[in-house]
């Protein structure tokens, strides 16, 4: 069993096939999209493959240490940041192929016109724990 992160980008991924910004969908289309995501997570819980799913606000702040006794320095948000994470789902599956299959299904979530968005999702394997037997 291996864990994978299915990463959804606001920006930074190649353009989706059905690439219409959400604010130009109908409210019904947005509801249908949310329902699809919800049903997908419920289905994975049913198959024993769901670990976590979260969405992120687009605005982020960069923070860094600025020396002893000084408050941290903050910067941003940067409008021009190339890569912007929208959210993720963590799955625990039998194989890499299964992770790809599920990401493909998630990418079929409906968007404008009720048609699949075909958006690009990034599949990233977790770094797990080392095995006990190594030689």
């Amino acid at each position, binding site marked *: *069993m291996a*864990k994978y992160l299915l990463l959804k980008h606001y920006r930074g991924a190649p353009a989706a096939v059905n690439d219409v910004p959400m604010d130009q969908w109908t409210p019904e289309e947005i509801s249908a999209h949310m329902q699809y995501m919800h049903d997908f997570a419920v289905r*994975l*819980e*049913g*198959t*024993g*493959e*769901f*670990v*976590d799913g979260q969405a992120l606000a687009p605005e982020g702040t960069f923070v860094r240490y600025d020396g002893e006794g000084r408050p941290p320095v903050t910067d941003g948000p940067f409008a021009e940041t190339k890569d912007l994470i929208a959210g993720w789902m963590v799955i*625990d599956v*039998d194989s890499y192929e299964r992770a790809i299959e599920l990401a493909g299904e998630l990418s079929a979530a409906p968007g404008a016109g009720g048609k699949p968005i075909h958006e690009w999702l990034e599949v990233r*394997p977790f*770094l*797990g*724990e*080392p*095995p*006990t*037997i*190594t*030689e």
Partner: protein
Amino acid sequence: MNEALLRSLTPSVLGILVRRGADFAAAEDAVQDALVEAVRVWPAEPPRDPKGWLVTVAWHRFLDATRADTARRRREDLVDEEPAAGPASAVDDTLQLYFLCAHPSLTPPSAVALTLRAVGGLTTRQIAQAYLVPEATMAQRISRAKRTVSGVRFDQPGDVATVLRVLYLVFNEGYSGDVDLAAEAIRLTRQLAAAIDHPEVAGLLALMLLHHARRAARTAPDGSLVPLAEQDRSRWDTESIAEGVEVLQAALARDRLGEFQAQAAIAALHADALTAEETDWVQIVEWYDELTRLTGSPVVRLNRAVAVGEADGARAGLAALAGLDPSLPRHAAVAAYLHERDGDLAMAAGLYAEAARQAPNLPERDHLMRQAARLNARQSR
């Protein structure tokens, strides 16, 4: 209250319920309930016959759970007709449970989860914590697994090899949370070895004991990996090594070699060396040759290249590596090691960095990155 005793009784209690006519899924739930009840009640009122107590409580739970069911009457009729525990021994029941939980119709993760619960007596929560998934996810995985095997007859012989693969997976899972999966795998394999006389079961048990013996020496206090050659061998568990060697020798004497016995033999040769320099690499290479013959696995050939490098020099090791697919996991790490031994530090540093990028887990990545950094620092001096 002895939790180990309680959990060791799990498979035979479950076996008795199934033989009395309970379906596997419901019986398994009932046994879990009985285990929880035992944890609650036994400290104040220890039973004279722990197994009898568990059977009685589990059986009542099973009847309670099916009472509302329309099939209740039929089941109760069944109970009246069924002879009590019957002639089947607890050993047979235990063995049948291993077969059922590792049934080939299950995916490996499902078989692992079901084995830990139905044979190991762990709770769903404990299993979920061990594998870092939500309890609800693990509960679904287990109930689906139970549905998958619901039609499998309990009295048919299964394949020992599938059971061994499941136990190997449990042992090799590195997580050590609340539940020590390595120790649990050893317990389950020991129990299996008592139920069936099979040299590969013994081989796997020996392999586990020999690797488990090194556990304390495998990681530094900061969690970083300590390679075999650098481990403090005085921290190896000599009792576990002695038992592993004894189990292995008895298995090898049967002259039915299998991959687990061969792997255990390699581990035993490492355990036998008081210092890394004393390691009998020539014999280890011979065992890797056996393993290659038995499995044909490219991963075995990769490990063999390391052993050849130690036995016959880095050049020979690199020659053994030459025919292997570079996309094999840990290929770059092996190549880096052999090139360093061969004196090509620049090449080795680059390969260590590449291996770090490909590492499947954090401790390995950090270890490989430190190797790259060590060589780069030496070269820039």
